């Protein structure tokens, strides 16, 4: 064996603690890189194999294409597999929102549309839907081949038809459909031909695929599709790209890979710093030995080789065992999640993990190797630990606190490196907490139901020419939500408060486009206006100003540019019973979205118009918590007994949103736990290094009369200072970056993200977890140190 190798091996044996720590750091780094890279690969592969199943194979869909656009797409060299999904009818079912669609075979193929049982409707009278839909229609035990009679309105307009259908199959159940009371049912193409002959009148969306011979990645494909559709005169808003499928089916592009690379880079930096820290301490401890070796004739290369061999020898043990443990952990995790044995191992990825971990090891020992190589024999033999940082001012009184501070100040560089590495590994935790912690199901539910526990509204149409009695203004004439109704609601035991909102139906003429249409205008008081302000997007959204100028707010900002510009004149005739009241006012601002109406005006403006009809269209009801069930039952009866009313319960809305948010939150928190593990590993390594390397010093202090309590106190204090530093480093940039991530996710339309608040609960949990783990670690370490006899500690020389 070469002498340098012998010396390296004996170095490993002689400095057992340091060797174990380094091996542990390399091991944990490998485990983490393995878990993250192998885990991501397994999830991606799983998603990739199921991508078509989950998201459909269409590259995108085009909403409402014109006949010309359809023809152009058919002739286009790169667009193929064009499939159509057509809106066929509205199914009338009180309290539910049900639409019937017809899909051609290509669209069924593209969207991997498969009934749970039975077949897709082929005959004119066949229908496919979820069992729960038929149950809601009153068919308790529906079966394939059963006849059902439904009330439908073809294309959502015209006369209501009673039509007998035969169930051709069932779709799988969906809890969110049940909670939202929304169903999509499917009918055949012959149905369309029978009832909706005029193709121009059909509202359809077109699914498509695009040839990708130049192997564009997902991002490039997206741009390419938008460019091609724009060239065909298709507006960008008509095109909806199936991004998840494109990302999984093709190379995702840098935009997706960048966050993953950032995470790996963070791990690389953090683990390199941890390993560097350990080696740096080891070099300082052994600097005299290196000096002696130099005095005996060892050259720089040989000294560097000793350290390199040590690091590689430790890596040779730690990396394979880290990969093995990582794979086993992943297998156990996947088994726990899916109850099946997943194959997670990949040789190329294992090579990547080895390379990546070795890179962090090599980076970390670069400086210690240089230090060791540069040592002058004379200096090294005389060497005392270099004191970094400025001496703090000495005091005439020494306490456990001042002793702790002195030590940290003396090893300023080591202390700061430690705090920095720990802080860095926790930054990502804070960033994600800022997004996940701000997902507010309650607020999202309040967007739908602003006040109280229940909302009853007029379920009316706008400009229904076949059934004009279903139109909002016609229903308002019956004073359906008038004072009698309010009295009846107020008399329900447990009801504590009632609020109402007016909605007016209006005939609006847009001077910009020259088009006229019936639409709804919500009338809000100052309090309600201020609630809407939270979603303000453009213009000056201020109640007094809007009232003073008789202004109007546009509530679907996304579509504002197609209709108006801020400052444009809004013109309409408000349908007040049999009268039409003209109104004109400026569009002063826009808001993100609203459930009530496309336009909003102030109560003050509305009052000035001299409207005679009671336009109350929404009633919000609050009740005592204990009486919620009985109030719900009474309101459900009330709703059932009256036509044109629709009831929404806050709890049902919240349950639905909660269901949607939970998945995202769970994914975020799983990731957070992995990040917390990195942070903790760092802290454990640092504290172990810190304590073990100072074993002798602690022995001396105890020999001089430091009690166990004082000793524990000193370790805890040291840990707490590390924790405080870590928290400072991670919370300050973490929250700033977290805020940026929140804004980005909000802009991208993530569910439940509204107003930013510091995720105090999550950060407190994080803070207490760090403090708790640090305290537990300090306790275990001090117990471990104390196990050794005091005299052995005083004699301790590693």
């Amino acid at each position, binding site marked *: 064996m070469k002498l340098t190798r012998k010396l390296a091996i004996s170095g490993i044996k002689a400095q057992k603690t340091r060797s174990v720590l380094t091996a542990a750091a390399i091991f944990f780094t490998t485990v983490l890189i393995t878990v993250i890279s192998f885990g991501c690969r397994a999830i991606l592969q799983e998603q990739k194999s199921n991508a078509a199943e989950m998201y459909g194979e269409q590259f995108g869909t085009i909403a409402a294409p014109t006949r010309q656009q359809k023809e152009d797409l058919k002739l286009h060299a790169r667009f193929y597999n064009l499939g159509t999904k057509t809106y066929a009818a509205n199914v009338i079912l009180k309290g539910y929102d049900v639409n019937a669609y017809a899909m051609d075979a290509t669209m069924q193929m593209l969207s991997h549309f498969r009934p749970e049982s039975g077949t897709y409707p082929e005959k004119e009278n066949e229908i496919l839907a979820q069992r729960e839909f038929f149950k809601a229609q009153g068919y308790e035990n529906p079966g394939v081949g059963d006849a059902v009679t439904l009330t439908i309105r073809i294309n959502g307009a015209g006369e209501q038809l009673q039509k007998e259908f035969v169930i051709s199959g069932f779709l799988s159940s969906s809890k969110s459909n049940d909670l939202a009371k929304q169903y999509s049912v499917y009918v055949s193409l012959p149905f369309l031909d029978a009832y909706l002959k005029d193709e121009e009148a059909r509202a359809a969306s077109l699914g498509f695929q695009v040839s990708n011979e130049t192997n564009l990645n997902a991002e490039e494909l997206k741009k390419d599709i938008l460019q091609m559709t724009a060239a065909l005169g298709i507006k960008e808003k008509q095109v909806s790209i199936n991004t998840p499928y494109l990302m999984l089916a093709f190379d995702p592009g840098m935009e997706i890979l960048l966050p993953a690379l950032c995470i790996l880079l963070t791990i690389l930096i953090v683990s390199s710093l941890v390993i560097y820290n350990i080696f740096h301490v080891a070099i300082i401890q052994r600097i005299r030995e290196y000096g002696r070796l130099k005095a005996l004739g060892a050259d720089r290369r040989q000294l560097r080789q000793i350290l390199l061999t040590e690091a590689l020898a430790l890596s040779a043990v730690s990396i394979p065992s880290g990969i093995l443990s990582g794979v086993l952990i992943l297998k156990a995790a996947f088994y726990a999640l899916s109850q099946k044995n997943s194959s997670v191992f990949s040789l190329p990825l294992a090579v990547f993990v080895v390379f990546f971990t070795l890179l962090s090891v090599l980076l970390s020992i670069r400086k210690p190797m240089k230090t060791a190589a540069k040592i002058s024999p004379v200096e090294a033999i005389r060497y*005392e*630990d270099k*004191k970094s940082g400025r*001496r703090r001012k*000495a*005091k*005439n*009184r*020494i*306490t*456990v606190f*001042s*002793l702790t501070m*002195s*030590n940290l*100040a*003396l*090893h300023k560089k080591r202390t700061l490196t430690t705090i920095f590495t720990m802080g860095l590994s926790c930054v990502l935790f804070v960033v994600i907490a800022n997004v996940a912690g701000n997902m507010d199901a309650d607020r999202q539910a309040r967007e739908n139901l602003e006040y109280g526990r229940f909302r009853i509204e007029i379920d009316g149409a706008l400009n229904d020419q076949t059934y004009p009695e279903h139109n909002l203004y016609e229903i308002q004439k019956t004073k359906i939500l008038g004072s009698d109704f309010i009295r009846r609601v107020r008399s329900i035991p447990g009801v504590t408060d009632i609020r109402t909102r007016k909605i007016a139906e209006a005939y609006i003429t847009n001077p910009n486009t020259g088009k006229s249409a019936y639409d709804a205008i919500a009338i809000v008081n100052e309090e309600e206006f201020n609630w809407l302000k939270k979603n303000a997007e453009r213009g000056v959204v201020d109640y007094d100003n809007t009232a003073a100028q008789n202004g109007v707010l546009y509530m679907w900002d996304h579509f504002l540019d197609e209709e108006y510009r801020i400052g444009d004149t809004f013109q309409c005739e408000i349908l007040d019973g049999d009268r039409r009241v003209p109104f004109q006012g400026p569009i002063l601002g826009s808001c993100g979205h609203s459930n009530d109406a496309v336009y909003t005006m102030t109560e003050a403006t509305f009052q000035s118009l001299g409207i005679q009809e009671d336009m109350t269209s929404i009633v919000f009801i609050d009740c005592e918590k204990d009486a919620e069930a009985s109030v719900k039952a009474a309101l459900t009866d009330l709703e059932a007994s009256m036509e044109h009313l629709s009831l929404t319960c806050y709890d049902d809305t919240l349950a639905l949103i909660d269901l949607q948010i939970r998945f995202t939150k769970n994914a975020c928190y799983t990731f957070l736990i992995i990040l917390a593990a990195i942070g903790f590993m760092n802290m454990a390594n640092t504290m172990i290094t810190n304590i073990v390397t100072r074993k*002798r*010093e602690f022995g*001396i*202090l*105890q*020999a*001089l*009369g*430091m*009690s*166990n*309590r*004082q000793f524990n106190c000193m370790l805890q204090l040291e840990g707490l200072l590390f924790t405080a530093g870590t928290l400072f480093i991670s919370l300050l940039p973490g929250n700033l970056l977290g805020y940026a991530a929140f804004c980005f996710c909000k802009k991208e339309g993530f569910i439940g993200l509204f107003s930013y608040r510091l995720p105090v609960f999550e950060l407190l949990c994080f803070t207490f977890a760090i403090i708790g783990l640090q305290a537990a670690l300090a306790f275990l370490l001090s117990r471990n140190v104390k196990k050794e*006899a*005091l*005299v052995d500690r*005083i004699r301790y020389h590693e």
Partner: protein
Amino acid sequence: MQAIVQTNDLCKYYGTGENMVKAADHINIAIEKGEFVAIAGKSGSGKSTLLHLLGGLDHPTGGTVRIGQTSIFSLKEAELAAFRRRKIGFIFQSYNLISSIDVLENILLPIGLDGKKADAAFLEDIIESLSLKDRTHSMPNTLSGGQQQRVAIARALAAKPDILLADEPTGNLDTKTGMEVMHLLKTSIRKYGQTLVMITHDEELAQMADRVLLIEDGRVVS
């Protein structure tokens, strides 16, 4: 005269059976107040073990150590720690100064750990007599061996302990500096009326003591 240190059948064994090492084997000694006792013996004879047992740094396999009226091994951990910082001053061969604090803070360490304030006049006197006045704010690693040992002596004296236990205090120093340190140590204990128990294998130094205890294989032979 009353014995300030007294051991009774003090034993410390390591290992078992054939591998048993008797580092202290039924030691019975009594040291009087103000006495300067040197413990001499060859390397591995058990000198350091005896000193550590006297200072309560190690626990005996059997027997007792009484300092003043206190049987030190009957004390609880916290009481023993407090007893050590108040009654015993240690001086080690390798000085064992705390590298992160300066000279003055090192000297004040036992008093600080006791949560007390130093007697300023006494402290000044010690610093003066050990010629450390110009070095009080120096860091230990900037001092020579002799200076470091003087700081260790000052630290041992600062809490006005009854007994000083010194483990080869001149072992790392050259002869001249060693003699200087010994002179200082002897002057100090006379001045402050303390008892000194010192380990040495240097006969010349042992002769400076009032009494020499010779240890062989864990037993006091003379």
